Every structure is written in C-alpha cells, then in structure tokens.
C-alpha cells in the first residue's frame, strides 16, 4: 500500500474511531450515576448552623504547623467545592496535609426566601458569628481569613470593619478595583465587567424584582458565553480526549457537577455586588458601606496575602492587584500564579503551588 493510500486509510480510521468514541462517551454518561461523582469529600464536621449558613471544621490530616485557625469563605456565585473538587485536586486537603486548622463557612443554597439578604448580613452577621464561634472553640483571639473570589471581597470587608478579630488575610482571585479590566489587553479577559457596565442600574433592579435573586442559571450562561467554543465543544469533540481514560472522564464529570451546582445569588446582595461594586466601583474609592459604616481599606491592619491567576478571564489580574498600596498594613504580599480563575484551584498543573504558597506565608507569620 502506498503512502497516500495509507494516509487516506488512516483518515478514514480516525473518523470511524472518533464516531465510536463519541458513542462510547454517551453510553458512559448514561451508565454513570450522579452519586458516583463525588465532590467536596474531605472529612469535616458541622459546628454551627445559622439560617441556611453552616460552619464546618475539617478533620486534621497532619500534625499542626500553624495553630491560628483558618476560615475559608467562598463567594455566593458557585460553591466552595471548587476548593475541594477531588482528593488529588483539593486546596483544602493540601492545606490540611500541611498542618493547618481549617474551617469552612458554607452559604448553602440560597433561594428566593433569601432575597432580602444583603452583603451586610453576610459580612457583619454570618462571617462575624462564624469568627466568634471559632474564637470560642479554639481560644484564639484572632483568626486567619481565606477568601475566594466574591468571598475574598467579603473577607476584605470583614478585615476592614473588624480588624481586632483578624490575624491574617489571604485572598485569592478577588476583585478589588472592578474597573481595572480596562487596562487588560487580553480580549478574553473581563467580559463580566464590561457586560455589567453595559446594563442600566434599573435593569439589575428589574432582574432582582422579577426573580427575587440573581438566578444561578443566568450566571452560568454568562460564564459559558465567556468561553464560547469551549462551551460548544465540551459535550462532543472534547469528550473524544477523555473517554478512554477513566480518571480523566471522572475529572470531567466532577467539574461538570461543580458547574451545575450554582445556587441563586440573594437578590439584595446581588444589587450591591453588581451596582455598587461592578458598576460604581465603590470598594476601591472607599464609599462602599456595610451596616452603616464605610469600608475603609486602610483599616486593614493584618498581614495580607493576595494570590491571583495570571490568565484569569473572570477577575482580570489588574482588578486583584489593585489592593496593593491601599491597605493600612505594611505586610502585603502578592503571588501571581499561572492559570485561570478555576484552573488555579482544579488544574493538575497548579496543584501544590497555591497551597504551598499559602502555607509557607502563614507559617512565616505564626
């Protein structure tokens, strides 16, 4: 058989093999039960419940190296399970393995009944109650806060309003200057910033008035739009690459499970998030108010570690970097890491770097 015939035969074989793989993928999906796809499995126990919000303490996995308790706070868009997707891709498991005393505040599944909750409630009530409980349980006067994305904004606000209870502040992929996306030259960065600014404030009011919440499905569609071709190919062409590898296939399903688990964002808090922060950029200019008090970033006196992802398309790096020079503490560290918004937590390449950076920084301040 000539080279050309071999190539033609190879091409035909590839087409047939790909069709077979897509068929196999559909069969695998059909035969996999949701309960087999587990996320957030690192052992923890419930310490406190307040409305739908729960405070957990993770079981230790190694001898303690940092005694100050660390409270992990995720945002209201998505769930904390991104930080504990699977045993070999888990920030919380890695931190536990490095000897940290880790606590988690889980916002649960807010719905329309939580429509009237504001960021004031999340910062000054739920986080404050969790911090007080941790202080009481551990005997520590102050705790370390570890905020992720919107949860990073909550912890920044808390550290500014309650500095006496915060020993260290670690924020990851956290927006501080919501208009700094204009400095980012990458076209795929910062669409949410641009899109939010294109809306009238009345549109956001109407959205919340209509649904009572910022619907989780709505935010999912905005996120899908930010990676258009990936969204079009992930259930077909992309499956060809994972179908023959059970680990990769289950990784794909766990990621899908995390993406599907997108609670509604409480309505009034969503108005603050989109109008006061994304549109009016009040956090950076010091005019953002919670419980009648201005959030003054200069009131943050605890050491701050600010970790951001260099290819973060959701929170462009400049939006995070803006915290530098704005706080009252001289102990400020920035760590840029390769990867994207979610990849920083779940990609195999970034595993270890994020947790090692955080643990080293905390050990040095113990």
């Amino acid at each position, binding site marked *: 058989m*000539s*080279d*050309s*015939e071999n*190539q*033609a035969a190879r*091409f035909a074989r*590839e*087409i047939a093999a*790909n069709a077979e793989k897509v068929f196999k993928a559909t069969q695998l999906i059909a035969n996999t039960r949701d309960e087999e796809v587990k996320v957030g499995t690192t052992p923890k126990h419930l310490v406190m419940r307040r*409305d739908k919000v729960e405070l957990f303490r993770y079981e230790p996995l190694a001898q303690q190296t940092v005694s100050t308790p660390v409270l992990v706070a995720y945002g209201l868009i998505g769930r904390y399970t991104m930080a504990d997707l699977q045993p070999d891709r888990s920030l919380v498991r890695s931190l536990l393995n490095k000897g940290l005393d880790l606590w988690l505040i889980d916002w649960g599944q807010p719905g*329309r*009944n*939580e*429509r*009237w*909750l504001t960021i004031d*409630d999340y910062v000054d*009530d739920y986080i404050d109650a969790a911090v007080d409980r941790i202080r009481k349980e551990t005997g520590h006067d102050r705790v370390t806060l570890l905020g992720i994305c919107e949860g990073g904004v909550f912890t920044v606000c808390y550290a500014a309003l309650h500095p006496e209870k915060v020993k260290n502040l670690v924020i990851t992929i956290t927006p501080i200057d919501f208009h700094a996306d204009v400095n980012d030259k990458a*076209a*795929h960065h910062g*669409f949410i910033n*641009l*899109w939010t600014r*294109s*809306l*009238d404030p009345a*549109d956001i009011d*109407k*959205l919340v*008035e*209509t*649904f*009572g919440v910022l619907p989780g499905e709505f935010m999912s569609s905005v996120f899908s*739009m*930010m*990676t*258009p*071709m*990936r969204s079009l*190919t992930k259930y077909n*062409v992309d499956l060809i690459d994972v179908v023959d590898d059970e680990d990769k296939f289950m990784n794909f399903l766990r990621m899908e499970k995390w993406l599907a688990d997108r609670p509604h964002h409480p309505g009034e808090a969503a108005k603050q998030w989109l109008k006061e922060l994304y549109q009016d950029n009040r956090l950076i200019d010091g005019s953002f108010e919670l419980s009648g008090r201005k959030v003054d970033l200069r009131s943050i006196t605890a050491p701050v570690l600010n970790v951001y992802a260099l290819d973060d398309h959701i929170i462009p790096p400049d939006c995070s970097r803006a915290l530098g020079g704005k706080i009252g503490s001289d102990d400020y560290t920035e760590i840029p890491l390769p990867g994207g918004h979610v990849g920083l937590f779940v990609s195999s390449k970034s595993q270890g770097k994020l947790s090692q950076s955080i643990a080293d920084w905390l050990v040095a301040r113990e």
Partner: protein
Amino acid sequence: MNDKAPSSKPVGATADWSNLWQSMAESSNRIVEAWSGSIAPFMMSRASEKAAGEVNDLSAAIERMAQGPQLADVWDFDRKVALAFGAWIDLRARLASYNAVTSAPWTEASRRFLEAVSKDKAEGTGTPDWRDMFAKWAEISNQELIKNQRTDAFLKAQKELLQAALQYRSRQTEVTDAISALFDLPTRRDLDEVTRQLTELRREVRALRREKEQSKGQP
C-alpha cells in the same frame, strides 16, 4: 483548479484530499467575497429592521390598547393577558435582533479559517490532521466570537433582549398573580413580603441579642 497536480505535490488519495481542501477554500473565499461585496448584507440588515419594526408596532399597539384606563366594573384579566402577549411579541423581535448580531462573527471566522487553510496549502505543509484543523477552527472562531461580544452592537442587543425577557416574565407573573387571587392563594409577591418581614425581624432580634451580650460584658 488544475486537474493534474504538480509532480512535487502528493499523489493519489492524499492529493485528492489536499486538493479538496484547496478547492473548498477557494470556493468559500469567492462566496464570502461575493457576499461581502454585494448588496445582500445591506438588504438582510434592512429586512431584519423591518421585521423588528413591524412586530414592535404590533407590540406597541397591544400596549396602547391594554394600557387604557381601568374601568371599575370591567374585569381586567384580558388586559393582563394581552400585555403578556405583547411582551412575548417584543421578546421574539429582540431575540431575532440578538441572533442577527451573534451570527455575524461566524462569517468572518469562516473567511479567516479558509484563508489559513489556503496559506498552509500554498506553503506545502502537508495533509492536515483533523485535530490540527479543528484546533485552528476553534481558535479562530473563539477569537471572533469574543471580539463580537465586546462590540456595542452585541452589548446593546443583549441588553435589549434581557429587558424584553424581564418584561415578559413580569407580565406573566401578573397573569399568574391574578389567577392565584381568584383561587385565594398567596402570590409570589405575598411570599416576598413575608420573607422581607422575616429577614428584618431576624436582624432586629440579632441586634438586640448583641446589645444584650455587650451590656453583660460591661462592668
């Protein structure tokens, strides 16, 4: 296209495959050029505006009719249904405008992709692997789609679609509220009011509890 391939080019099935790509690229480029240079895009644009204009007129007429003065002894359920229908018509028009804006980048993506394929062919880089070809197509399309998302036209179309969808949803709610009231059932607004009061009460109780705890701590 030449029937005979030059001797330096691949022969047999590979040559056929390679020539097919070249042929497709050239044909498609001609189609894209003809389309872009013709009056067709202008006509499509006008037709789209005309269609949107007509349904907007219908929607506005329903709105005018339904927004008339309320009469005390006339049941206004029909008015609510008419308003919901008008909002639905408007939503369809906004969706059509949105689809027109979002379909635009595919033409440019096709043009760029075929140009890239032709270039590879001209440089004699060999028979393309499907994976490489698909990766190239996905990369170019992604760039064009994202570029389109950042245009004023896209942002405007999306905003108007959102506004129309919210208007339709709120008109639907007015209809379902009227039905709920008819059967003496609480409406979503009633429940919202209850949860508002509950949230405010909870805040007050917790504030009082904090005050009490703080006063206990004082000498």
